[in-house]
């Protein structure tokens, strides 16, 4: 009969713990049945290990596998793709544990556990997740140490220690690889977050959408300024523009006359005329900054006007906003130079004028239209008309609120003359309508306004509730000019942010716990610290892309060539290996203590701490004798300890070293508990007193 290499018993605690830790993040995230099935299967395996149940046969395992595949199909509609795939993987991994019996099954289980752990990164990459994966990896590796430990009856904690040491030793090497190994763009694009909703702004806006966003405290992006930070009133982060109004919804659209390549300019692409003019007229940049964006699932990038970025995949659109070639599926960072400049030189061709003044054909909102026409007719120019309109917003009874009443057919009429309660989208939307109705080209700009300055990193933190929309109008001679009707109604929103503005009207954007906690100073400080750590992580780890790597390396290597990179890798690797070699030599030179010697040291240290005068040349019997004089209550356990120690250290036949080891430790602890001083302080002073 062929020999069967079984999994050593002492490896099981870490094998099972590793499996559980590796699956746990997915249980949290995945379908409900997974969170039930995996713990049950692992518990089952534990019972098998305990000898309560027998290993299930093929007749049980095969239907289980089919059931798992069926459940995955039911939950995800497929077994392919990252999410369904991971669900199936985690469930199958738990099933694999059920048939883990031979050593090679354990190897497979450990590799699977590592893989399942790695898939966690598909869904989350924040510092906490990374820390968790590190810890879980130590446990999985402890299982690997365990199945390779020929000694039986060893304490599992030793394996954990060994594994932790190995991971620690691997850390420097990991850093070197992280920094130096050439980064390649992914060979295929894994659409992980298909089902995850796109966050932030969308490419259209209907009433109520922005106010919904304003209730989220999630992070949109962070900005790190090179130099001074603009004041709050100038922090208008332009994301996208809406040029098309259908009576209710504003959306991003291009008139059919325009070709994409004339509208969008990417580095290395054709350069349209308007871009050349912009380039020619820009002076020194007013703001230089780096934006680190969270995943949005969309292409829009946010920047102050007029933005230029040198990143390859970032393009500039004719309406002066940055766009990425592909959707932002993971943390993305880009460097921007912003120039405050008039943008009249682009000119306003006839097609553009027609597009930006267009309104729905059938005469909706008649009252607003009429008022716009009357006011424009009586005004001296576009500028005067706009000023009057803004003044009107400011002086009439308009309310800034997150909970506006619902609007019916003629949204603008109803809002302007009846409800008069609205959020920025209502003001921007009606304002833009009024401009267009008066024949002034206008568009809505969507983005974020403001941001919180984190003093720790001196960076700006822009959250979803900073979402904002405002209006740009074309004025002859001045070009596109920004107008913010919300600022006319609630100036506090622009100067101090949403919270302060809403407070004036007795409202709060964040309700519940998050809202309550925001008022607590300690929590505010902690969240700033957390933000600082997360920003550092996003900047240095997640944002360390191919381009950043090249920039970083060229600072050290000059020109980055493959030869130089290989040399740098070899040099740094060599230094690390040399350091490890020296360390190992040092360790070999000094023989390590064996466990009973360590135990002996613990005992003598404990006694010394309690005031027993011990010299190193004392034998165990002498130590015990002296200690017993000081602590008579510990006499018996001390003697037992000494007998046990001498047996281990000096006798010929030690059977069951593990038993003795446990016994020795137990006796030492027993002694420790008995180290109670008798009433008399110590024999010496006692003698003195007698004398």
């Amino acid at each position: 009969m062929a020999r069967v290499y079984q999994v050593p018993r002492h490896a099981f605690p870490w094998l099972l713990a590793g499996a559980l830790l590796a699956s746990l993040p997915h249980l949290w995230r995945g379908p409900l049945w997974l969170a039930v099935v995996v713990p049950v299967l692992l518990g089952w395996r534990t019972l098998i290990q305990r000898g309560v149940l027998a290993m299930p046969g093929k007749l049980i395992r095969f239907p289980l596998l089919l059931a798992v595949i069926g459940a995955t199909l039911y939950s995800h509609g497929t077994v392919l793709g990252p999410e369904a795939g991971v669900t199936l993987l985690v469930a199958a991994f738990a099933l694999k544990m059920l048939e883990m019996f031979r050593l090679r099954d354990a190897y497979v289980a450990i590799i699977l556990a590592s893989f399942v752990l790695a898939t966690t990164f598909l869904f989350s990459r924040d510092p906490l997740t990374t820390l968790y994966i590190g810890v879980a990896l130590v446990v999985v590796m402890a299982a690997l140490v365990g199945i390779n430990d020929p000694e039986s009856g060893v304490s599992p904690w030793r394996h954990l220690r060994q594994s932790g040491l190995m991971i620690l030793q691997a850390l420097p090497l990991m850093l070197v690889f992280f920094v130096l190994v050439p980064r390649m763009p992914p060979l295929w694009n894994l659409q992980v977050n298909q089902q995850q909703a796109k966050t932030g702004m969308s490419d259209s806006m209907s009433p109520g959408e922005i106010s919904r966003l304003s209730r989220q405290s999630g992070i949109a992006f962070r900005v790190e300024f090179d130099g001074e930070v603009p004041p709050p009133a100038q922090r208008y982060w332009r994301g996208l523009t809406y040029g098309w109004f259908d009576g209710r919804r504003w959306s991003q659209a291009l008139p059919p006359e325009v070709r994409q390549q004339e509208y969008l300019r990417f580095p290395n692409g054709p350069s349209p005329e308007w871009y050349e003019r912009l380039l020619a007229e820009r002076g020194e940049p007013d703001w230089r900054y780096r934006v680190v964006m969270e995943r949005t699932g969309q292409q829009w990038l946010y920047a102050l006007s007029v933005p230029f970025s040198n990143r390859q995949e970032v393009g500039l659109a004719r309406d002066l906003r940055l766009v990425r070639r592909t959707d932002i599926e993971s943390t993305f960072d880009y460097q921007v130079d912003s120039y405050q400049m008039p943008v009249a030189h682009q000119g306003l061709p006839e097609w553009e004028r027609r597009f930006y003044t267009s309104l729905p054909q059938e005469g909706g909102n008649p009252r607003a239209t009429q008022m716009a026409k009357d006011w424009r007719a009586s005004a001296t120019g576009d500028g005067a008309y706009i000023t009057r309109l803004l003044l009107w917003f400011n002086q009439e009874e308009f309310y800034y609120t997150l909970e506006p009443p619902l609007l019916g057919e003629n949204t603008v009429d109803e809002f302007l003359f009846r409800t008069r309660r609205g959020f920025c989208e209502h003001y921007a939307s009606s304002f833009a309508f009024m401009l267009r109705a008066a024949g002034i080209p206008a568009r809505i700009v969507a983005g974020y306004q403001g941001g919180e300055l984190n003093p720790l990193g001196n960076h700006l933190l822009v959250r979803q509730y900073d979402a904002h929309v405002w209006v740009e109008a074309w004025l002859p001679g001045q070009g596109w000019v920004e107008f913010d009707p919300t600022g006319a109604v609630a100036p506090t929103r622009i100067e101090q942010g949403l919270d302060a503005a809403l407070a004036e009207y007795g409202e709060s954007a964040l309700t519940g716990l998050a809202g309550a906690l925001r008022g607590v100073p300690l929590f505010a400080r902690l969240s700033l610290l957390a933000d600082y750590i997360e920003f550092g992580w996003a900047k240095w780890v997640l944002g360390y892309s191919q381009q950043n790597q090249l920039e970083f390396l060229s600072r050290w290597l000059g020109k980055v060539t493959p030869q130089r990179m290989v040399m740098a890798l070899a040099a740094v690797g060599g230094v690390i290996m040399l350091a490890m070699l020296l360390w190992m030599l040092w360790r070999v030179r000094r023989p390590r203590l064996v466990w009973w010697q360590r135990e002996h040291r613990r005992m003598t240290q404990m006694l010394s701490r309690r005031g027993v005068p011990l010299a190193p040349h004392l034998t165990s019997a002498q130590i015990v004798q002296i200690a017993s004089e000081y602590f008579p209550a510990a006499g018996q356990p001390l003697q037992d300890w000494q007998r046990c120690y001498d047996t281990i250290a000096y006798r010929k036949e030690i059977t069951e070293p593990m038993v003795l080891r446990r016994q020795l430790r137990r006796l030492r602890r027993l002694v420790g508990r008995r180290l109670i001083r008798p009433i008399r302080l110590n024999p010496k002073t006692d003698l003195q007193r007698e004398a």
Partner: protein
Amino acid sequence: MSTTIGRAISAVSSVVLGKDEQIRLAVACMLARGHLLIEDLPGMGKTTLAHALARVFSLDYRRVQFTSDMLPADILGVSIYDPDTRQFQLRQGPVFAQLLLADEVNRATPKTQGALLEAMEERQVTLDGVSRPLPEPFFVIATQNPVTQAGTFPLPESQLDRFLMRISLGYPSAETELALLSGSDRRDHASTMKPEISSAELMQQMELVGKVHASADLIDYVQRLLAHSRDSGLFVVGLSPRAGLGLLRAARAWAFVAGRDYVTPEDVQVVLGPVTAHRIQASTGGASATSTQQLLEAVPVVRRS
């Protein structure tokens, strides 16, 4: 404890009063196949101890009083021409005994002392170019007066190294002395003692001593003692490997006498003084007993790092 050894020890104790420790050491020394040097002033019972040991272990015993005019032949023996057989006949000297008591060995000249050298180390004697083995077992118990006394030749270091142990008896305590004075002459006691162990049995016991277990920790301790004697600068010359082997052998024998089949650091510490005191010399010139104590206190029993 081996009961026969225990009986032997108590028998000797009844003759040499109040010197249990020294008796045990002497017995251990014999069990370790070592030669013993007893250093003390005259009249402290050195000879009585040697005599008693010889009786108890039923050994063939000779005693030689060393004097300054002694020649090697007086110890080894001499060939005499026998006119009847017309041949030289060997008259064996006192060395052809199982236990040789060399009394006041430092009164003899170095030349005579040297004659003992081959006998002690090789356990054989070369006379007229013929090597003659000495009987088994073979022990030398030498006594010597403190070197400071008049009319003594200090033993050469090479010879000192051949003694496994050096002990001294010292004055008896008051009680012991009272018992001593009120009793009859101790030497008579010794000559009337009956043997407790046959020499064959003694050989067997010596075999067993070699099997006493010395663990790795213990050997490590012994090695650290030796290394420290060489490296610390406490001593003019460090302990030799022979001294190290002797120390371990003596510790084994001590453990055996104590009835254990394994050696503990206590055993080493007990025999450390007797085994090493006569081999090393403190660099400060102080008493060698103090320096062995220093050595003992400088070396931790259990490795600390």
